[in-house]
């Protein structure tokens, strides 16, 4: 099914001009996604890209993939529906930290344990951008925002630890401050057979903290390779993930060397088991109903 012709970065750019604030980290994420997709080599029409709602969730519109801005917090259920309806598609899901860990937080563990071959990219800016600067689930304790006027009273979610704890088979973190690195990570995530999660620290220049901008990322980021991390070691990955919020580690935290079948493969196996014969490809599905 999959094409392997070569596609340039430009092939994945849509005619829409991004309306993010100048300097928003999401521009870098978008560039990295273009690069990763061109390295993968699937035709744009074989890619489905869905998001929730938020500034970051605008991202599918800026690509030539099929996809849309869906419902706040529901990118993952919709992505799963798409993947199950058409498993040959390359399915990407994306959104913000509010979208993914607050209102949509309940969907994440189940997407992970179900293990469909979907790549989920969260643009984590520790703030609600689109609604103009309220507390997000990854905002640090004490942060002053429009909805935490005297400082937040809540501990932030640690998304890396969360997903590792939920049993995710592929977990990575990047930043648009290192676009080459981020492209490679997204590419690896897409190539990974199973649910893959990439947390991107993507600064909000308008409402984010001044010390969490690209400049600070550039100065402070530490690649996991440079600290000699073995990405097949989940416990070590969890250990390093505890630095979320203090040290910005980039790279693959965990990649299951023996990830097992995806959900859609298991569905296929079950079908074969019941029908006793191999599944008719979708193009010939009508033959099932036409007596010979």
């Amino acid at each position, binding site marked *: 099914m999959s094409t392997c012709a070569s596609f340039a970065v430009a092939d994945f750019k849509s005619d829409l001009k991004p309306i993010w604030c100048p300097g928003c980290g999401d521009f870098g994420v978008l560039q990295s996604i273009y690069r990763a997709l061109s390295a993968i080599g699937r035709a744009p029409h074989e890619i489905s890209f869905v998001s929730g*709602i938020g500034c970051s969730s605008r991202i599918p519109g800026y690509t030539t993939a099929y996809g849309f*801005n869906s*419902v*706040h*917090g529901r990118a993952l259920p919709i992505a799963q529906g798409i993947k199950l309806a058409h498993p040959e598609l390359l399915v990407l899901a994306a959104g913000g930290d509010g979208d993914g860990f*607050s*209102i949509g*937080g309940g969907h994440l563990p189940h997407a992970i344990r179900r293990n469909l071959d979907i790549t989920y990219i969260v643009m984590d800016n520790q703030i*609600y951008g*689109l*609604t*103009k600067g*309220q*507390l997000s*689930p990854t905002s640090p304790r004490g942060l002053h925002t*429009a*909805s*935490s*006027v*005297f400082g937040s009273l809540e501990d932030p979610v640690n998304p890396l630890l969360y997903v590792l704890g939920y049993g995710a088979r592929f977990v990575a973190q990047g930043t648009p401050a290192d676009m080459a690195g981020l492209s490679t990570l997204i590419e690896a995530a897409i190539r990974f057979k199973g649910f893959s999660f990439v947390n991107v620290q993507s600064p909000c220049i308008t409402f984010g903290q001044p010390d969490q901008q690209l400049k600070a990322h550039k100065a402070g980021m530490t690649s996991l390779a440079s600290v000699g991390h073995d990405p097949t070691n989940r416990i070590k990955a969890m250990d390093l993930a505890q630095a979320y919020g203090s040290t910005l580690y980039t790279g693959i935290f965990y990649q299951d060397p023996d990830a097992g079948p995806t959900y859609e493969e298991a569905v296929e196996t079950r079908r074969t088991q019941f029908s006793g014969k191999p599944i008719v490809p979708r193009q010939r599905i009508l033959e099932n109903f036409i007596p010979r």
Partner: protein
Amino acid sequence: MPQVTERPKPFLFPEFCKGCGRCISVCQKHSIHFADHINARTGVVPIEIDLDTCNACGLCMDACPEPYGLIGRPVDATDWELEDPSHLFGHRPTTAPVPVDIPDQRVALPACEPLVVKGNYAAAIGALLAGCRHFFGYPITPSTEGAELMASLMPKLQGVFLQAVSEVATVNHMYGAASAGQRSMTFTSSPGFSLMLEGISYMIGAELPGVFVNIMRGGPGLGNIAPEQTDIKLACRGLGHGNTHALVFAPSTPQEMLDMTMRAFDLSFRYRNPVVILGDGYLGQMTGRVMLPRDMVKPGIPAWAVWGDAMHRRNLTSSIMLAETDLEQHNEHLNRKYEAMKVEAMADTFVCDDAEIIVVACNTPARMAKGAVQELRHMGVKAGLFRPQTLWPFPVDAFLPLLAHARRIVMVEASPGQLEDELRLALSRADVRTYPPISSVQHFGGILPQQHEIVTRIMDLPAGSHAQAVSGSEVLA
């Protein structure tokens, strides 16, 4: 001769069998089988016992997990009769005192100059003056300012502000706070209101108060963030599943945002039912002069609150009623409450006394409609404005007298006729079979009907049209 004590054979009151079949599998004599009918009171198939083959071994009675399920029937009791356990044992004894209402107090406010504030702020201030000290919400444009004002004021007023993780969480936080008899509210907008409906249904079922300010925006789906009035249907007819209703207010000025929010809290507690305030995106953002009331409320604690002290020990809030008869009675009680709420219907009229053309509008479109009516009066057209301030119940009693001289009804709304549907339903319920033809000026998608459109629409109406049977509506979209 050795004495044989006869063991009791099993007995079952079918109402207490949950049909699990455990007894069937333990019976070595195969004396138990499922009945061939469904028990009408429980909706499940109970078991039946063939006492002729039963040897009274008692295994089934041990196996039955139901406290009032299979039991041994005393052998010697000839006139023995099983009864409902609550009849046998009565209510659980309690030494808790009978709870009484700790009444609200009114505290005089010093006189002050009018404020000039946005509609959303006015509603937030109204809530604070009504004694609301629990705010839960999830950011959503165009309602967020209300929540943000609460975030900056609540901590200073010994209150609680919590940004929930979603609207689903919001409504359930409100459920919890309301159970404790506390005044709680939220600000939201259409997509968020959709998510709250499940919880609102539960709150209505459990008879819990709470105030929901929905600043309506364009839909369906994500739509946009511009003003619309397309949640009228949802608020009046679709508050989640089951037999639900709530008072629905439709303010059209920042002053009404404040006044109606204050009133909403009073009524929410009076009727023990949520109250919905429907604003539109424009009204939420619009700045206006707002007079503060003369006094504010220091809430007491209602007798029904699950307040967690000795006096409230016997209270319970719940919407679960498994027995059909109980649930039917509960719904009859809710219906009586809904009926009683009808006295809260409110409407405002503007030059309607001799009006031949009745313009009907609420929220911001009512402001355009009022301008149009003024303009038409200058042109010598006898137009008047009828502005429902409550949408449920619809103020039909205030509307009926206007029909005496009305020749046309013109609906002005930022929705495809949801207000018109409420009017038509109210007329139908009031047994009004003939009324003047209804025309309408409608816009959707975030565009509000404009004054000149309303005037043009009315000037274009066929001259001297008389009252006639219900006609199809003519729409200017």
